[in-house]
């Protein structure tokens, strides 16, 4: 007696196998993986950041037909901000496309640390615009890392410069109390060497207060701050730690005007959940702020009006969306620079690395691209993988961010020797011979 269930399951299996398993033929284009996190505790910040990146790639494809005619093939991979998942995503996507991944932007300092080991072996550049290892600014040691437009050390220096200006000059910092409230993880600890050096130089009292991951428990830290009565609290948080800190500051009646978050603690998801309590909160800007530029009009016309893209015209002017766009733009322009030398075709990671290292965008070019006013002119070189060392301060007024300062430039005379020392130590530890930048073309 035939078993009807067996017959049914065999039919089902046959049907499934007969499904046209569309062989995802190698589309011809430049493959760029997007390691994003749309789930997990950092999702509110990760989602707009990733949207900025993919919507800009879509814009390039729709408006320009690709980079010099070569379409961008992008694929997102969910990392959840976890280092091991980030490494798994990288391993899976690094060889996709006709020439492999052009570059990888990990969107996370933790994943950057892990990929810094793998990128030189696989020859894929890492673009860590605004985050990553601060010492990777030294391109002679960190050939494959590009912390474009800003590193944490730049941020720390500009923060102290702004605070000094608030008190009337660097000499007025003497005896003042500044607290660093930081997320207890690699990215949170990055600014400590610079702040300690500045504390010694200007003779102010620096107190370091860590917040355990993910940062929802901050009551004891803010009680400590209330007892200390500092002049300024510099906040180095990410994700849910930021709105929690603002609410706790309100609970202990610490004026929000005396809080200065760094550029990953200064976006809408950090202040909107805290509601009216966030009014007056200040934050550093990774050069760009919120608001629209000409590129947003292009986005509306070529992406959103066609029903493409992950975001929408309202959210696309947020701080983190702009950050995603800027990062994507720098990567695309790096590829374009490489194409000028290697030809208009899909490029390998090595060629793209050359392109990023020779990237130069002046005022006119930024205007052409539609990013006028968002970032300052940038020039990358072998010795300087950051390109520009400027920042501004913005303040939340309850409805939007307002830029409240001029451009500050980080003090290279102090940072350069620290940078050389840190990069040198890394080179010695890994047995890397630093490149001679004067010989590189």
């Amino acid at each position: 007696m035939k078993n009807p269930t067996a017959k049914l399951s065999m039919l089902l299996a046959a049907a499934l196998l007969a499904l046209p398993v569309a062989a995802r033929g190698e589309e011809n284009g430049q493959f760029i993986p997007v390691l994003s996190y749309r789930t997990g505790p950092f999702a509110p910040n990760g989602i707009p950041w990733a949207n900025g990146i993919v919507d800009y790639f879509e814009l390039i494809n729709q408006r320009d037909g690709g980079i010099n005619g070569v379409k961008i093939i992008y694929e997102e991979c969910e990392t959840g901000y976890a280092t091991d998942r980030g490494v798994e995503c990288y391993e899976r996507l690094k060889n996709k496309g006709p020439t492999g991944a052009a570059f990888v932007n990990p969107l996370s300092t933790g994943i950057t640390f892990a990929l810094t080991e793998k990128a030189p072996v696989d020859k894929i550049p890492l673009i860590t615009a605004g985050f990553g290892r601060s010492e990777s600014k030294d391109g002679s040691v960190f050939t494959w890392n590009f912390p474009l437009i800003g590193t944490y050390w730049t941020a720390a220096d500009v923060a102290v410069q702004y605070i000094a200006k608030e008190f009337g000059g660097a000499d007025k910092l003497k005896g003042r109390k500044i607290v660093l409230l930081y997320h207890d993880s690699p990215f949170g600890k990055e600014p400590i060497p610079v702040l300690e050096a500045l504390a010694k130089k200007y003779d102010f009292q620096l107190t370091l207060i860590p917040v355990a991951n993910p940062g929802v428990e901050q009551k004891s830290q803010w009680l400590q701050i209330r007892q200390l009565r500092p002049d300024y609290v510099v906040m180095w948080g990410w994700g849910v730690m930021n709105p929690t800190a603002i609410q706790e500051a309100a609970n202990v009646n610490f004026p929000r005007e005396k809080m200065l978050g760094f550029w990953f603690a200064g976006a809408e998801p950090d202040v909107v959940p805290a509601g009216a309590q966030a009014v007056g909160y200040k934050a550093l800007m990774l050069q760009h702020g919120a608001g629209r530029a000409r590129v947003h009009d292009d986005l509306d016309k070529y992406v959103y009006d066609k029903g493409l893209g992950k975001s929408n015209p309202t959210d696309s002017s947020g701080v983190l969306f702009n950050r995603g766009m800027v990062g994507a733009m720098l990567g695309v322009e790096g590829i374009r620079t490489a194409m000028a030398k290697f030809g208009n075709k899909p490029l390998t990671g090595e060629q793209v690395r050359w392109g990023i290292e020779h990237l130069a965008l002046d005022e006119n070019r930024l205007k052409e691209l539609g990013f006028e006013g968002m970032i300052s002119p940038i020039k990358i070189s072998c010795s300087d993988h950051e390109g520009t060392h400027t920042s501004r301060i913005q303040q939340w007024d309850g409805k939007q961010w307002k830029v409240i300062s001029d451009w500050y430039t980080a003090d290279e005379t102090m940072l350069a020797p620290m940078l050389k020392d840190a990069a040198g130590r890394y080179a010695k530890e890994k047995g890397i011979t630093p490149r001679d930048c004067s010989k590189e073309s």
Partner: protein
Amino acid sequence: MFYREAGHFHDKYRDEMAIFQIREDRIGIRLLLIAAFVAVPLLHAAGVPPFAGDYLFNAVLTPLLILATAAIGLNLLVGYCGQISLGAGAFMGVGAYAAYNVSVHLPGLPLLATFLLAGAASAAVGLVFGIPSLRIKGLYLAVATLAAQFFLDWAFLRVGWITNYSTSGSVTAPPLVIAGWHVDSPVERYLLVLAIAVLVALGAANLVRGNLGRQWMAIRDMDIAAEIIGIRPMQSKLTAFAISSFILGLAGALWAFVNLRSWEPYAFSIDRSFQLLFIVIIGGLGSIIGCFLGAAFIWLLPLAVEGIPRWLSIPIPADAAANLTLGVFGALILVTLIFEPHGLARIWAIMKHKLRRWPFPY
């Protein structure tokens, strides 16, 4: 018909005490080892699709084998000795940071000695945190080991010398060299962890069949009766903690040095402890093969849930796939525990049992 104990006559005590007594079992395990050690690298060298490239080795096989090794360590404690432990991730971390410190302060030491010292350090720490087990049991012991997890989490972040005063808290492993063999490529790293996993599994399997293992199982089943018949609970429980932590420390050193290469304390957080506990429970408490089956289940399932829609070309956005993974994960764990609470190892044992009787149904 083919697979049965009948017909195997031993004429040496040695054969009677073997782990695999049925000839088909012995053939099977030999084929498996040959496939793992010889066939897989050959297929990689030949460029056959799933084995070509780095992905299978870097992202699937190496982490899976290291987690299986760690699960063996935890299974000895939880499955064989019955002491619930939620601190497995922290003990792996102790091993990882101990190996890092040995490599920094004693750079000339051979790699395998580094790993063994890492295991020893973790064993010492495990011994200390195992002392509460002499007074408390079950859920209370779980809480005490949870305290170990949080304490060690704090220590990795705040105690400077553990990370060699690294400013960021992130540390990097040195290049791996064993007697002149540079373990660089993904296949070489896979072979290294495979060798260590096989040795640990062999050691653990023999340990649980011997005197110590029987003491542990007696304590697990009824510790008061065990004490009455002469088993000393302090010695048994503390050796369980020590040996379990040794293996966990070894696995942690492998996870850090071979798999991650550069890590931060969060890699050994409570999530890692839960992951190991789930591997041990799903795989089967009190079984060595269960550790490998559980590790495969826990590690491969998320990759399968994201990979199958991609293979069938059904476009699913990345975050939906991640959330779907969690849902399917939870559902499958629930289903497994309802239909077979003793885990995958029991399902494997039932399959072998049925094979013994085949073609008869009972």
